[in-house]
Every structure is written in C-alpha cells, then in structure tokens.
C-alpha cells in the first residue's frame, strides 16, 4: 500500500517531464533535469519515511540538508583541505606533467613505441592501491593526496594527449611539409590546436578521478580535517547525515569542476564538429 503514492509521484513526474521535453528549449532542458533530480530526492524521502529506514543506515534528504546547514564551517574546512589543496593542486600538476610528457613522447618515436604500451598498462592499474604507499612517502597532509591525484590523472591525460597530438590528418601535415615548417611551428600552429579536443576529453574524465583520489587517500592517514577523514570518522560515530552532507559537497564540487572544464572546452574547441551542433 505504501508503495502506491511512491509510484504515483514517479509516474506523474515522468509524465510532466515527457511533456516538457517536447519543447526542447534551454529553460525546459534545465527544468527537466531539475525535476528528475527532485523526483529522486522526493522518492528517497518518501521511501525512508514510509518504510522507517533507520537514519544510521540511510538518512532522509531533509536530515542531510539540515546537517549540511548546521555544519557549513566544518564542510568548508574539509572542502579547502581535500578539494582545493589535494584534488585541484594534484590535478593541475598531473595535467601539466602529462602534457609535457606527451610532447616529449611525441618528439621521439622510440619513446612513443616504448612508453605508450607501458602507459596504457599503468593507466589500467588500480591506482588507489598505491595510496597507502604515497601516504607513507609524502606524509599525512595534502601533499600525499595531491601525489595520489597526480598519479591517477597523469596516465589518462597522457594517453589522450598523445592521441591528440597524432590527430592531425595527412593533408594537414603535408601542408606543413610543403611550407617546410619547423617542428615547433607545426607543434604550436597545428598539433596543439588539433590535440585540444582530445586533451579536454582527458581533462574532463579526470575531474571526477581527482576527487575520488583525494578523498580515498585520506583513508590511509590524514590530518584531522578533510572530506575523507570526516566521512570515515562520521561513519564511526554513526553521524550518517554528516556523511551524506560531505557526499553532497563532493557531488556539487565535482559537478561544478566538470562543468567548468566543459565550459572552457567549449571556448577552446569551438571549431570542433562536436561543439558546433
């Protein structure tokens, strides 16, 4: 019986969305996404209440929101520690290193043939496994988290960037050859721009990886702040609403991070068919 209103809410929200989706304007697109999300939250709240799910198992969205509002200062400190210091620094360093390495590899066919298979191998490695090792090497503070992030984002970006630098077509390269362009000239004026769509593909994938890396690394040792620290401590204290508030922060930060990179991508690779529509 309790399932009936839940199903009713689901169906009516879906119906509303189906109707809205037909207009397909910027506003309705946003609305549809928001209604979808809101529906999930409402259903979640209804299920938790209707079936009396204990909050130490799964707190209701309203409890999570209350905890979020009550703990803004803690959440902010954790955000700075984990996202700004750990994830962002690591991501920037990893990306720069990967780009530089890609250019280096690109110059040397020998390295390309030797390093790329190994890079592909390492890219498939369960990098989280080295988190305890890096914590041992780089200490407890954000530096070790950044190091984990560097290692996690390095290979996906490298592989993408190398593919990108090779993404010019034969005619574009032949043109440069007929003008007798030097290496750096064709790098800057042809390969770099052509590589941008690939590079951004890598940068986008790694935004979420960076967050995950920074948070998970905190499990293997951390100062007494940070999102990973807070999550594990709060689980230990059965303060599940706080855990979910941290997850909320991570989701918001991650979506923003992804969105910003996607926005820059749009600016930089405006010329690419996938951006032109």
């Amino acid at each position, binding site marked *: 019986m309790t399932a009936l209103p839940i199903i009713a809410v689901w169906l009516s929200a879906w119906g509303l969305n189906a109707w809205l*989706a037909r207009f397909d304007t910027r506003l309705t697109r946003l609305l549809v996404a928001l209604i979808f999300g809101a529906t999930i939250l409402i259903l979640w709240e209804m299920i938790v209440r209707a079936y009396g799910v204990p909050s130490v198992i799964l707190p209701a969205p309203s409890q999570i929101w209350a905890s979020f509002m009550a703990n803004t200062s803690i959440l902010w400190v954790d955000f700075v520690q984990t996202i700004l210091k750990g994830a962002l620094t690591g991501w920037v360093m990893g990306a720069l290193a990967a780009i530089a390495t890609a250019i280096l590899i690109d110059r040397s066919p020998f390295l390309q043939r030797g390093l790329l298979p190994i890079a592909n191998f390492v890219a498939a490695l*369960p990098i989280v496994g080295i988190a*305890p090792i890096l914590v041992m090497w780089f200490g407890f503070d954000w530096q070790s988290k950044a190091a984990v992030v560097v290692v996690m984002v390095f290979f996906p970006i490298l592989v993408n960037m190398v593919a990108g630098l090779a993404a010019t077509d034969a005619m574009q390269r032949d043109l440069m050859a007929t003008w007798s362009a030097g290496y750096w000239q064709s790098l800057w004026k042809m390969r770099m721009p052509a590589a941008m769509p690939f590079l951004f593909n890598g940068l986008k994938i790694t935004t*979420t990886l960076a967050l995950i890396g920074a*948070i998970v690394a905190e499990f293997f040792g951390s100062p007494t702040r940070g999102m990973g620290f807070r999550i594990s401590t709060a689980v230990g204290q059965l303060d599940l609403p706080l855990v979910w508030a941290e997850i909320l922060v991570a989701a918001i930060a991650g979506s923003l991070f*992804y969105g910003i990179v996607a926005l820059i991508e749009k600016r930089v690779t405006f010329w690419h068919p996938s951006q032109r529509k």
Partner: protein
Amino acid sequence: MSRVLPVLTVIAAIILVWYVAAIGMNAQWAKDQAARADTTLTTGELIADTLSQDRPVLPAPHQVAAGLWDGLAGQKITSRRSLVYHAWITLSATMAGFAIGSLAGIVLAVGITHSKVMDQSVMPWAVASQTVPILAIAPMVIVVFASVGVTGLLPKAMISAWLSFFPVLVGMVKGLRTPDAMQLDLMRSWSATRSQAFWRLRLPSSMPFLFASLKIAVAAALVGTIVGELPAGATSGLGARLLSGSYYGQTVQIWSALFTAAALAAGLVMLIGWIERMTLRRMGLAK
C-alpha cells in the same frame, strides 16, 4: 615495426630508476638503525641493506619479483597464501560488476538516444553520480546491502558496476549518435523503422566506441572491486591482500598484490581488445 626493443629499454630504465629510488628511500631507515645500534655503515653495506630490508619504504624490484613468484607459483593455488586464489576472488566480482555495469550503461544509452526525456533528465545526473565518492562510502554501501540481505560477491560487484557503467554510458551515447546525417537520411528515405535503424545502423556504427569504453570500464570495475574489498571486511581478494599488507607494513606484499592486479587489468583489457579485433574484423571495420 618492432616494439620489443623500445619497450624493453623503457622497462630497463624504469627498473634502474626504481633501484636508485629504493636505495634513496630506504637509506634513512638503514642509517637510523645503524645509529641505534651505534655502528656506522660503509656505502656498500648501506646499499646492500637498503635492497634487503624486511619492511622497506620502497621494496627493490627483485624483492617484489620474489614476492610475486612466491605468491603465484610458490603456493597451491587453493591456498589462502596464493595470489592466484585471491586474484580469482577479485576477478569473479569484477566480472559480475563489469557485466552489470556495462549492461546498465548500454541500456541507459539506448534509452537516451531514443527518448528526449531520458536524454535531458538522465545525463546530468549520471555525471553527478560519478562525483559521489563511491569509493569512500564503499563500506557503508556494503552495510546497506547487507541490511537488505544482500551479501557476498554482489555488494562488491555493485560498487564496480557503479564505476564501470559511466564510461560505457558516455561511449555508447556517443557511438549510437555517430551515424552522420546522410546515413540517417538514407534510412529515412527507405522509410526504415526505428528498430531497423537501430539494429542495422546505430548499433554497428557504435561498436568501435563500445569497445573503447569497455576497456576503460573493465579497468574501472577492477578498481571498484579492489576498493570494495579493501576496507569492507572482505577477507579474501587482492584488495584484502593490499590491506593486510598495509596493516602489517609488508610492503613487498602490497607491491606483489598491486602487480597482480595490474596484470589482471592488463589481461582483461587485452581480452577485450582481442574480442574487439575479432568483432571488427567480422564487421569489416578492421583495416
């Protein structure tokens, strides 16, 4: 073109760097120990010590190789000390998670390319879903599953499914949308039905994308399983090996488990690559 020589060269270089790093990183401990014992070490003794410590900060390659050999070949494969046994545990959960995840990704992608509502509502939240630090809440997830009676392999598999569905979703959406306007217009001019266009145009043209994302997804699934095993009270599997190695400071054990995991990942990726080549060849897409 031969890749063997370059790859070997790079591997040799890595091993060299590794040895140097091992000496550097383990030296502090060797010196401290000498100081505690009131002796001094010659450079030769120092180097020898750094390459043979019991709990080195960074084990030397030959120590890892020995650990690997012992774990893989030195035990009965049903023994709990055998890496083969643990790799098998991890592999089975990975495969289950990968199957669930890629199926979910494909189904969602088909829905998204065929329904405007799904496209507009699911995609943004799929991105958001990946920013949830699932790895951080893996233990909780496992407890929640246990509370509804799901235990064993499935909870771990759900975590790896969560990580692996996203690349498949993104790749498949892209793949199902690759047919260019002309190819779609041809179908229209023949008045093909949606399902005819799907089976004969969208699906075949999405194959290269599907395989590319399956490779990413299988690696992600492995990470998911290992993390599911790490803290979540799993008692076997490579994640548990990593954990117990870490717990007892057995760096050699950590590195052996890590390399086994890497080999597993490489093997899975290669397997998919092989299936990809077979499929694409049969489709005439491999040149």
